[in-house]
Structures are given as C-alpha cells and as structure tokens.
C-alpha cells in the first residue's frame, strides 16, 4: 500500500492530460453528435506548433518564459486546423449519413499525420521537446512529483475552471448548452448554431494544444504519430466519464490515468499475474476498465440517460 500516494500523483498527472484531450471529443460530440477521430492529430499538430515557437525563440530564453508563447503558438495551430476541419470537412457532411463524417475523420487523421511527416523539418523521426531540468520535487517521504508534470497539474484545473465558468455563466456558454440540448430550438431563439459548432471545435483545439505541450514536456519528444494512442485514450476517457459532459471527460481522464498507473504498480504483485503487470499491458487494462464501466453504466460515470425529451 505504500505505493498508493505515488500512484495517485503520477496517475493524476497522466489523467488530467487525458482529460484535456477528452474535452475536445466530448464538446464536439455534445453539440453535433460527431466523434472527431482526427482530434488526436489536432493534439499532435498543437505539439508541433508549440515546438516551432520554441525553435524560433533564442536559446537564451528560459523554458518558463517560453512556455506561454509556446502555448499560444500551439493553440493557434490547433484551433486553426480544428476549425478548418469543421468548416471544410465536417460541415458539408452535416446532413449526410453518420458514417460519412466518421470516415472523413479517419481520412483527415491520416492526412494530417502524413502532412507533418512530409513537410515538418526532420519530423520523419521524433523531434526532441524541451524539458525542465532538475530533480523531481519530493512531496513527502516517498512521493515524488516530476518537474514536467507540474505544468499539467496547474494548467488542467485552470482550463477546467475557465471552461466551467464560461459554459455555465456566459451568454455564449448558455447558447452552447441550448444548442447541445436542442439545436433546432436553439436557432428559434436566435442562436447562430454554426458559430457555436465552430466554437466547440475551437475550444477542443485549444485544450488539445495544452495537452500536447504537457505530453511533450513529459516525454521529452513529440512525433507525427503521437496523436493516435493519445486520442484513443482520451476518447476512452470521454466515454468513461459520459460523453457530452465536460466534467465527465475530466473525471474519466483522471480515473483512466490512475487506473493505468495502478495497473503497472500493482498487478505484478498479484500471484500468477506477474507477467500481466508490465508497462506494455497498461493499455489493455485501460480498455478493460472501459468495458467494465460500460457494462455497469452504459451512459458513463456522469452521463445522463437521453430520455428526457418529451
């Protein structure tokens, strides 16, 4: 049991990262019932946007000072690509059968990977991402917090707080809720639902860029394929938490992150399961968790049963 605090801290850092990406899936799904399978690539693009800014800045600028500009650059890139995808790939298909935008998303995802692979300098292999130097912080006796994880643990709650206030309190946020609940009626109120949809993609893009920077810091590198598994995990988190619910997305991410970390910590100690507890198995346990939760609660942890339309 003495590993528990460390598992929670590491799991929380990983989980909030998943949660930030899961927000993008859940916002878009909540408003247009589309799973944007290219969202992982929006994360990846944001990582490269942030890296580009770092490379433009002189080496003498410390990482702490560069970070806000990197976030800005990453967010601008992600938001631009996400909103362009909405406008030119998904919007023309809004009245098409469900399968059409789904296949488009997969195609878009491959196209974005290949574009970065082909045109970003030296992106055919991983590019190194700046990291904070120095030892991990010692929280208590045996519990350590990696320097590079501090970023996501600060950024994710701030992002959630801002989003929560925006959705609940602002006029546009309320228009967003109305559009998610009943798009036709939202238009009757005078809400330009096309604008709200663009906004959902944009917010997802901005959060994706924050996650990309967090991932770059943690791993010390980014590559054109990184969006695939991150996207898959975050999608899992969104479903786990109850797709369409922003707090569910973050909760799902945290649960998934902790479960994944716990699987590598504990399963190896279970007699007879030693070989199932390695790092290579953590993805398996993540999806096992998803299956179990969906068996018990098909609508996800915070999801609502969609039956309240009279």
């Amino acid at each position, binding site marked *: 049991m003495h590993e528990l605090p460390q598992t929670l801290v590491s799991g929380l850092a990983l989980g909030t990262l998943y949660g930030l990406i899961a927000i993008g899936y859940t916002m878009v799904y909540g408003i247009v019932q589309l799973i944007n399978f290219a969202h992982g690539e929006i994360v990846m693009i944001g990582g490269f946007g942030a890296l580009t800014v770092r490379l433009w800045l002189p080496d003498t600028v410390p990482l702490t000072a560069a970070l806000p500009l990197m976030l800005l650059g990453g967010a601008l890139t992600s938001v631009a690509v996400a909103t362009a995808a909405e406008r030119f790939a998904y919007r023309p298909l809004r009245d098409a059968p469900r399968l059409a935008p789904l296949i488009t998303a997969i195609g878009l995802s491959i196209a974005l990977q290949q574009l970065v692979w082909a045109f970003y300098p030296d992106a055919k292999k991983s590019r190194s991402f700046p990291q904070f130097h120095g030892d991990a912080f010692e929280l208590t006796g045996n519990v350590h917090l990696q320097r590079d994880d501090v970023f996501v643990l600060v950024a994710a709650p701030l992002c959630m707080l801002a989003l929560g206030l925006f959705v609940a309190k602002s006029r546009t946020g309320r228009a967003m809720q109305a559009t998610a609940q009943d798009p036709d009626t939202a238009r*009757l109120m005078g809400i330009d639902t096309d604008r709200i949809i663009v906004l959902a993609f944009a917010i997802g893009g901005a959060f994706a860029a924050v996650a990309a920077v967090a991932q770059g810091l943690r791993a010390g590198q980014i590559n054109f394929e990184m969006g695939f598994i991150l996207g898959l995990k975050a999608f899992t988190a969104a479903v786990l938490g109850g797709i369409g619910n922003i707090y569910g997305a973050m909760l799902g991410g945290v649960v998934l992150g902790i479960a994944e970390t716990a699987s590598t910590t504990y399963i190896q100690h279970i007699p007879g399961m030693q070989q199932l507890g390695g790092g290579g198995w953590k993805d398996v346990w993540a999806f096992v968790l998803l299956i179990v939760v969906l068996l018990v609660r098909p609508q996800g942890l915070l999801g609502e049963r969609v039956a309240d339309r009279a």
Partner: protein
Amino acid sequence: MTALLEVEDLHVAYGKIEAVKGISFTVDTGQIVTLIGTNGAGKTTTLRTLSGLLTPRSGTIRFDGRPLHGIPAHRVVALGLAHSPEGRHIFPRLTIAENLQLGAFLRKDGDGIAHDIRHVYELFPILGERARQAAGTLSGGEQQMLAMGRALMSRPKLLMLDEPSMGLSPIVMQKIMDTIAELKASGTTILLVEQNAQAALGLADRGHVMETGRIVLSGTGAELLHDESVRKAYLGED
C-alpha cells in the same frame, strides 16, 4: 391596413414528398389566425418554414413588409417572428429562468428582459415559483407554459404557437387557451396551429382548414365553427 404576414402559393417538400402544396393566407396585426387540420396536413411544416427551419421549394413569404426567403432561422426571430414549437421543446437541463433568458437571446436591454420575465411569471405563476428548477422536471402543461413564455420573451410582432394544447388535460388546456385570449387582448398577433379545432376556432378571427398540404376551407372562426363539413370532420359530430 396591410397584412403583417403574407404567405403566397407556398410549396414545401421533404425530398420528393411535397408536404405543403401551394397555400396562401395572411395574418393582420392584432388578429389570431388558426390553421386546423389532422396530423400530416402540413401545419407544422408551414410554421417551420415561416421560422426558417425549412426552406420552401417555391412561393413567397412577406413578413412586416419584407420577404423572409433565404433568411436563416436564427435571424428570423430578430425580425419579430417567434415560434413555440410542437412538442414544446424546452431546454430540459436548463432552469426555467435560463430558458426564459434564452428566449430573449438577441435582446440587449437587461431591464426590459427582467421586466418581461416578471410578466411571464405573472401570466404563469407556477413558473415563477420554480424559476431555479430544471425545466425537464416540469409537467407537460407547465412545459407548455414555459415554451409560450419563452417565445414571448423576444417581444415578437407575431407569435406562432404549434399545438399548444397537445397532450394536456382539459383544465390545463383551458388555462392555455385563456392565456392565448389574454395575449390577444393585450395586442399580440398570433398564428395558432391546433388539432383541437373547437378551442382554436373559438378564439380565432380567421381560420384555415388544411388537408394533405392544401387549404381546403377558410373563413372567420365563427363561420368555420358552424360549418357543416368542419363540424363533421373536426368536431366529431355526425
């Protein structure tokens, strides 16, 4: 006096199936005009076309002196046309107060909005008592009151009500009909779609009977109420 709403030879289709086949009617300021008819007659399609949710195949709609053609739904309400849709369609997970504020989404006059919300609470006191409650928890009749109140919040020149009595108990239905009469008395122009022909014609200045996409009979409310064929077809008399 010119008409507030003029619909001329309106055709609306879903794909190849024409749901509205060339209807014409007008609504004058201060009037209640009702479209009655059975399910599938094209009444709801007509309202959804007027508010911009559907695009007509042909025909003209003039509202307050200007053509409505090609104006997207979210701009139509700004011109003064409010639509309380069939099935109420309140926002279930927002509170009653938030639903009403959304009805005034395009208005910037905070004081005026607050005043109008109080007015809705006077019309329907139950809404005021439950202002902070999620709208999905209201009963059907209360949801209908909310849908009407929300439509009024845009201060419309023309209020379109689609089946406000649908699924309501006789007592609640009477309350809704009384409110419609009150709204007319205070000068609101109303286009009322109803299956309950008796109640609708009792209130209306003019009525139009729709059947399979066409207007088959028009007259004043009283004329239609006493019309032999209307009594047979819609009022359940032999």
